[in-house]
């Protein structure tokens, strides 16, 4: 890869600097523009009557009382949308064999999870719509619910979909090397564990929200969207609502967190769009917290049986896992609910040189809310299983947990390599990251403290994880499987007549600072000050085509497009400047909004003056010069399927063995996400991710009763991690730029969430080790820790 590498060393480069977010002031002043802030003329409001049962036949729906309520505009049941909405199927062809029946926005005939929308009411206000929902008389005949993934495949289990012979959705097997022989070796120690990961969900500050307008005169639909992938929404709405794609505009202004929750097609949101089209007036639907818990996608829900064989030298001889996961009644559209299990199979043990690896994944349908991709898809499971087994094995053979990693992690000087599961890895730094972590956290000091504390009856533990993260995916992630999801992104950079830069990009901002790094790259590469850059994202009508922000791809892919476009525009501007200044373009550069002499850096002409000549006084230019002060470039990853990152993390915890409560004392993360564009933003991404990892490890769980009722659908009962319980999270970086781009940036958004649970689980088990007990179930609640000890 070649490129103008000097862009990182330019005097006015913003790349690598902790620039403050330009939009922060606006947001903290309360001037954000979220979907719920929209008030449109003739707008009406939607609410949904949802199934109170996990599985039930819908015998009859009586709307008559609700229809009489003043202010009710329309009431739709599932059948009412049949002529307006095409069914959609959440499968991907590259997940061979994955099956799922067609879905519609509202349940028809049968409801298959508690919370599934059954009837939609549209009214003059949300309160009236809710009043009307309470008046709708839906007669259900409850059916036996399939809730436990473990028994969903048993012969006497009820079958959720009549068209299938059982509840299996997908199965995949990876078999590499010779696993059986390796486990049979007489010089290996075998450790076997069963891991359980509860369901949890991404709790966004702003719930899912949509306002949909339909203009019948142009057959055009505008979808105001709180989410991450505007072009994907445009494509799927076009297909499902039978409208030309160009007649659908998807606008995502400020988004109050998404975490992968708002990147799927939800029945209630599709119904909102269909209702707007039918009623020919704007319809608003904003999910409340209660319905968010029962309808926002859930994640995890895995039971993994794993075993590892290690030689006395510490070498991993073989690794085998069996993952079972329940995904709810359907595979989510359009990304499918197969990716998380697929990731578990692909990523377990991926940091380590393992020759013999076997993994089986089984996905079953169940009568619970749908499960799909949430931040760090599959990673927390894969990392906890591999590193949980590895640390257990280290203790069995009496080897330090850092030492066993040193022996098995891929060498830093040996890339590219291919893992046992077939993942291509390049430009990683596992060994360096681990060494940096060990000195950064003062590992030896902590071990001494641990011994001293135990003498006082205090149980402290230290746990590690070495991890990889899938970032910057190529079309091999979704596009190959037939989903209308772009792996490439585009950026358009335009110079205006005042010398300011306008950038529009197809990646999106959900609060993580995307717009800031876009401005940093454009300003630095092109050569203006940050405050002269205006960034537009989140609008299919005004941005180039692209995938959006997910899978830690915004900076790496969208950022590279901005770099390429800014560079192209710079060349175009310098060409015009050369003509105006009668100089060669090679002797000119742009810096702080001025065209300068590239040798002595003195000003030749300001960009404002150049813009005025081009736009207003074109007569001053030779007639064969046709300036283009706008440039567009697109970028996709081509050389490898994914640009992996690596990290090493450690947790220090104290377990109150009498109460089962765990205090996280400190957390350290050393992350290699390639070139760091904005250290502060990257650090906060990692910290936020670690906090979500702490949530998964200790707090968050969607608790279902045996008959499929979600028991804790409120913020009082669903425990998200809170500031008071959070430790200091110390971050350090190693920068190994990816060779796939000039920018060299990999993703950083999911590392914390993916790695933290493993380190925390290992730390808790390290603390519990003197008691000869352990826990491999998340969240590690006080009661579970007490039960592990046999106290209760």
């Amino acid at each position: 890869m070649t490129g103008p590498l000097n862009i990182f060393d330019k005097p006015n480069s913003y790349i690598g600097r902790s620039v403050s977010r330009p939009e922060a002031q606006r947001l903290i002043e309360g001037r954000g523009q979220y979907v719920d802030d929209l008030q449109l003329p003739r707008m009406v409001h939607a609410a949904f009557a949802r199934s109170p049962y996990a599985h039930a036949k819908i015998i009859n729906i009586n709307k008559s009382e609700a229809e009489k309520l003043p202010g009710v505009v329309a009431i739709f049941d599932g059948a009412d949308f049949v002529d307006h909405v095409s069914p959609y199927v959440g499968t991907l062809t590259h997940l061979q064999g994955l099956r799922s029946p067609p879905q519609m926005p509202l349940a028809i005939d049968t409801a298959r999870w508690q919370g599934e929308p059954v009837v939609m009411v549209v009214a003059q206000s949300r309160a009236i719509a809710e009043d009307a929902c309470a008046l709708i008389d839906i007669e259900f005949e409850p059916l036996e619910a399939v809730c436990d993934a473990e028994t969903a495949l048993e012969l006497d289990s009820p079958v959720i979909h009549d068209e299938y012979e059982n509840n299996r959705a997908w199965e995949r097997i990876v078999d590499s090397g010779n696993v059986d022989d390796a486990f049979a070796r007489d010089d290996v120690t075998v450790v076997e564990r069963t891991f359980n990961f509860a369901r949890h969900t991404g709790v966004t500050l702003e719930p899912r929200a949509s306002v949909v307008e339909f203009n019948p005169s142009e057959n055009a639909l505008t979808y105001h969207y709180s989410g991450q992938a505007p072009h994907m929404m445009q494509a799927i709405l076009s297909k499902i609502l039978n409208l030309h794609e160009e007649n659908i505009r998807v606008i995502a202004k400020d988004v109050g967190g998404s975490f992968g929750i708002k990147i799927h097609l939800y029945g209630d949101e599709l119904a909102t769009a269909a209702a707007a089209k039918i009623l020919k007036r704007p319809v608003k639907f904003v999910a409340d917290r209660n319905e968010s818990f029962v309808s926002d996608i859930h994640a995890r829900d895995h039971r993994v049986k794993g075993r590892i064989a290690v030689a006395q030298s510490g070498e991993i001889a073989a690794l085998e896992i069996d993952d079972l996961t329940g995904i709810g009644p359907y595979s989510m559209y359009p990304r499918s609910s197969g990716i998380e299990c697929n990731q578990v199979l692909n990523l377990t043990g991926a940091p380590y040189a393992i020759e013999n690896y076997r993994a089986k994944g089984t996905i079953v349908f169940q009568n619970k809310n749908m499960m799909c991709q949430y931040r760090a898809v599959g990673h927390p499971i894969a990392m906890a299983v591999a590193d949980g087994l590895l640390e257990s094995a280290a203790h069995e053979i009496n080897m330090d947990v850092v030492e066993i990693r040193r022996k098995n992690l891929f060498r830093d000087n040996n890339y590219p390599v291919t893992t046992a599961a077939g993942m291509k890895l390049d430009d990683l730094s596992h060994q360096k990251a681990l060494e940096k972590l060990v000195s950064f956290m003062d590992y030896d000091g902590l071990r001494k403290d641990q011994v001293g504390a135990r003498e006082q009856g205090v149980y402290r533990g230290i746990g590690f994880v070495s991890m990889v993260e899938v970032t910057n995916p190529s079309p091999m992630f979704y596009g190959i499987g037939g989903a209308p999801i772009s792996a490439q992104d585009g950026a358009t950079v335009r110079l205006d007549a005042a010398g300011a830069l306008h950038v529009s990009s197809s990646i999106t901002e959900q609060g993580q600072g995307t717009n800031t790094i876009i401005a940093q790259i454009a300003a630095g590469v092109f050569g203006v000050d940050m405050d002269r850059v205006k960034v537009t994202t989140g609008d299919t009508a005004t941005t180039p085509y692209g995938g959006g922000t997910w899978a830690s791809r915004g900076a790496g892919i969208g950022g590279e497009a901005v770099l390429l476009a800014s560079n192209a525009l710079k060349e175009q501007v310098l060409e015009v400047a050369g003509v105006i200044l009668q100089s060669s373009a090679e002797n000119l550069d742009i810096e702080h909004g001025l065209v300068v002499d590239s040798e002595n850096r003195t000003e030749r002409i300001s960009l404002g003056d150049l813009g005025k000549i081009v736009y207003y006084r074109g007569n001053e230019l030779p007639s064969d010069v046709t300036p283009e002060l706008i440039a567009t470039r697109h970028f996709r990853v081509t050389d490898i399927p994914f640009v992996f990152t690596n990290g090493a993390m450690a947790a220090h915890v104290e377990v109150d063995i009498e109460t089962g409560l765990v205090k996280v004392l400190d957390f350290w993360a050393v992350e290699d996400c390639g070139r760091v564009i904005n250290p502060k933003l990257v650090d906060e991404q990692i910290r936020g991710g670690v906090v979500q990892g702490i949530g998964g490890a200790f707090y968050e769980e969607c608790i279902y009763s045996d008959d499929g009722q979600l028991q804790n659908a409120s913020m009082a009962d669903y425990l998200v991690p809170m500031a008071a319980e959070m430790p200091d999270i110390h971050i350090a970086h190693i920068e190994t730029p990816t060779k796939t781009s000039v920018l060299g940036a990999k993703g950083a958004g999911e590392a914390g969430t993916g790695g933290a649970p493993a380190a925390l689980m290992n730390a808790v088990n390290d603390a519990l080790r003197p008691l000869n007990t352990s826990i491999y179930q998340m969240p590690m609640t006080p009661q579970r820790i007490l039960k592990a000890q046999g106290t209760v």
Partner: protein
Amino acid sequence: MKAADFAYEKPVDLASALDLLNDEDRDIQLLAGGQSLMPMMNFRLAQPELLIDLNGVDELNFIEEEGEVITIGAMARYSQLQASPIISQHVPLFTLALPHIAHAAVRNRGTIGGSVALADPAAEMPALLIALGATITVISKSAEREISARDFFIGIYETALGNGELVKSVTVPKAKKDNVYGFYELTRRHGDYAMAGVAIAAGSIDPVSDLKIVLFSVSDKPRRLKDAEAVLDGKDLDNADAHASVKRALTKFEFQGDLNADAKTKQHLAGVVIKRTLEGMV
């Protein structure tokens, strides 16, 4: 999550509030701090026909010292109790417990009367009042009566309040020189409802006299552990049998589990909170 339709009145004095409340035909709820009632209404678990907002009734918001007792108006907010020199001087058990009641934002709105009238078995305040031997004054349009805290709390969200009555004030005795208090709760996150909690008051600690051990968030209402109180009375708490006798008493106590801790876990944790609290009181 919008509340069902309801009528709303905001009286400016107690007499008008009691007039409004004196209506047996309507389902009425009183709005104090709203920290429990508003979510319940938005979830439509509570659907009153009439909501009487007491936030304009200033005569219910006071903290008064009188002789050997402190009287607190029903509309006194937790944050006011925390800031009150009268409380910090005379009701040390409140000072110990108040920081554990939810979060600052909730304490800024939540009132003592609201907590008492709601009778949430997980709430701290009912347990504190039982431990202190408090009296709750309730009033209706026609009469005023006093009910001891021990008789006031009947079950889950169930109190001795009759039709047309509201909580007017709470009266607690001032702490005396030898009195010792303890408070401890185990929560998964700071400010959550406890997995198990205890408020303990002792007339004296060495030896133990007039001991009240009140467990909360473990059963249908805060309950005293009378068996253990009796065993410990007159003893010295360093006594090795003290904890064993508490554990024995707990086996006879009826625990009710919740999502965070089943009955067995609550029994174990109740033992832990009592042990740690008593240790802290010595």
